[in-house]
């Protein structure tokens, strides 16, 4: 594969084209720049600090879960229960904080609940050998119904702890806390995928599960880890979301799993497993969230928030196959 270091310097447009051919994320980067350029021409407030922070905060929520989903997809599995789990986790977090009057207890409850959902998914997939698509759809249904057994309506904030609100709305220096959390998650998962045994084994598992087993890898444990990690990251996001909404909303997170998977696929991760990158996922999240934001500040019909990303996914995936073909032949 031509790495960027091997590309000879060339003048002007040729150089850009050559750099694009070597960069798997080229299409997304160009797309993102074009989107930002076009929206800011139409609405100058796009570049206001408040708007940029809003985009980053929205992106942070998706990115945290998408980091886990990228790991799962690379390993050849998928988790469709993340949206339902997100809503349930928010209710659990708010309820636990109300009862204990302690933010750490609420946070731990959120992580424990969502982590347990991940563990459950992982066990169903690895022990009962249910296909992960089916297993996690089932989990999604269980959670969507289960949350109403747990609470008929939104769990309101009765504790009024400033620290709880700070998780979603607070700042550390100039940076919103959710964005810092997302950055930390991004860095950790990036390093895990690129430089650790866990990451390399995950790629191997997705690329060829038989070869992975023959090589003595602990295939089941590896899959289980992917589901638990994703679960824990849903816990983090559930906590942030519940803090931002100042309530545990049983209806929150509808369709969230689709946004997450769309971002990961847009970022070039293969549904078939074995191939993908977290950088791609980051770009995928940003593209989707900039589109969302653009539709809002341009005052378009909000229904376009579903339509446009759908079109973008098809277009970007197509452009990427064209790029790969150019390079290969």
């Amino acid at each position: 594969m031509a790495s960027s270091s091997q590309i000879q310097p060339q003048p002007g447009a040729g150089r850009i084209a050559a750099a694009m051919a070597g960069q798997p994320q080229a299409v997304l980067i160009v797309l993102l720049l074009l989107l930002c350029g076009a929206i800011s021409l139409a609405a100058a407030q796009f570049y206001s600090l408040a708007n940029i922070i809003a985009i980053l905060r929205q992106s942070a929520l998706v990115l945290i879960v998408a980091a886990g989903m990228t790991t799962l997809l690379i390993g050849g599995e998928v988790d469709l229960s993340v949206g339902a789990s997100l809503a349930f986790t928010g209710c659990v977090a708010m309820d636990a904080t109300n009862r204990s009057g302690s933010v750490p207890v609420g946070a731990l409850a959120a992580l424990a609940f969502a982590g347990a959902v991940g563990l459950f998914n992982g066990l169903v997939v690895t022990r009962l050998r249910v296909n992960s698509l089916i297993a996690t759809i089932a989990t999604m249904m269980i959670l969507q119904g289960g949350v109403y057994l747990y609470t008929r309506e939104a769990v309101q904030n009765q504790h009024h702890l400033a620290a709880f609100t700070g998780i979603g709305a607070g700042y550390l220096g100039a940076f919103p806390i959710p964005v810092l959390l997302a950055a930390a998650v991004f860095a950790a998962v990036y390093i895990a995928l690129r430089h650790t045994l866990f990451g390399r084994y995950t790629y191997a598992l997705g690329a060829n599960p038989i070869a992975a087993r023959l090589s003595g890898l602990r295939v089941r444990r590896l899959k289980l880890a992917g589901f638990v990690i994703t679960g824990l990251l849903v816990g983090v996001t559930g906590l942030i979301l519940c803090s931002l909404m100042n309530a545990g909303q049983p209806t929150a997170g509808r369709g969230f799993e689709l946004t997450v998977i769309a971002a990961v696929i847009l970022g070039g991760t293969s549904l078939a497993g074995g191939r993908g990158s977290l950088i791609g996922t980051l770009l995928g999240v940003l593209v989707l969230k900039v589109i969302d934001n653009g539709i809002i500040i341009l005052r378009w019909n909000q229904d376009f928030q579903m339509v446009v990303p759908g079109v973008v996914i098809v277009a970007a995936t197509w452009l990427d196959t064209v790029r790969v073909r150019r390079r290969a032949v």
Partner: protein
Amino acid sequence: MLSDPHSPALAMQGIGKQFPGVVALADVDLTLTGGQVHALIGENGAGKSTLIKILAGVYQKDSGSIRIGGVEAELRTPRDALRLGIKVVFQEIALIPEFTVAENIFLERHPVNRIGSIAWGKLRADAKALFDRLGFAVDPGARARDLPISTQQMVEIARALAHEARIVVMDEPTSSLTPKEVALLFTVIRRLKSLGIAVVYVSHKLDEIFEIADTVTVLRDGRHISTKPVAAHTQDSLIQDMIGRRIEFLFPRARGPARSDVLLSVRGLSTKDKLRDVSFEVRAGEVFGFFGLLGAGRTELAKAIVGFDPIRSGEIAIGGQPLRPHDTRTGVALGIGLLTEDRKTEGLMLEQSVQHNMSLAALGGFAVAGFVQEARERSAVQGFVDRLRVRTPGLDRPIRDLSGGNQQKVLLSRWLLRGLKVIVVDEPTRGIDVGAKSEIFALIDRLAGEGHAVVMMTSEMPELLGLSDRIAVMANGRITATMPRADATQEGLLSAAIA
């Protein structure tokens, strides 16, 4: 199409093709005559696959010309090739598993009745008529996925007739056939000849070429080396053309006699559906060969003793340690590993780099606190690439770009890097050509010489007789005979395999 009856069925002239960094073909000619079998041979990376993919319309030539029946032709897509009468039967059969034989044959042109719906009765009758012309009986209503590979191949050939193909290309058609099925295939090929069809036969098996081909073209490093009538060749002269040097010994034996310490012991091994009471021992420095017909249970045995497939009863010990629990993780830890017969689906991570493919089983050894020390990994991998002379443009190149022989070296290195006591190789030279084969043989010999125990499953008799110290024959999941190589004859092995 107007064509001159005296012009060749197909003339490819000065064909050139480049891939980034590689010249795959340079100035290659190939001329086919109707009613003749033209063998195309060459080592790994000689350009055979590229040439037939150009013929199939899968790749586009960069230079040269293709004339079909004397008329200049452009083959831009597989559809173009089919339309111009070229049918390629690839190694990986391209039937639709859920469709019937008849539906597969007429996939592109279902016969329809007056109201435009598919005429199912006619479909079956037409399919049956085609098989009659081929001298071969297949139930047109059978589903493709229920048929053995050999029959699926016949269906592919029938598709060629359905398209009125004048040129049929077969890529390694016998690589997964039993001797009986090969004989049947040859009968069908002779039938194609009698129908005036030009057949291109790509194979690594020289004895087959002497049996079936009229003319043979040798490619080497993307260049045309020779085209001669088969009668003008001896086995030696063919090999010499292929590799550009003479192989004195296809099976060099450099190692000494086996040592006394038993590295693998299998006692009374049975599985749920195949193996029955299998017992044997393999010593350090020994190559223990398993022979058997298709379905005898060799692959099942290979997968059971490395811990991949579950066993029902019996004892497996590696270096004196029982394989318990019975899984691959324990197997690898004790020092047993399998080089699988099916490189693509069970061995390779096709999209991943040479380095990542090679280091997979040994990666834990390069890690400190869970972090892979990439510099150490890389230099170890580079060491094996050099030692085994793996031909690759770079360690970061996806392994799919390597030839079969070089892929096999990488997979063997996966285990060498890990350091095993016992290595089980299942059909180690499948889909690999002569030059690379002898390199793999030399490697297996060297492994045994270094004190490994090697278990080799093979259906290639010369390979078995050339490399093994002892030979066991399997039939119906049992060992029916065990003999030292000195006592083994082809007849003796076969009669034990049929027993």
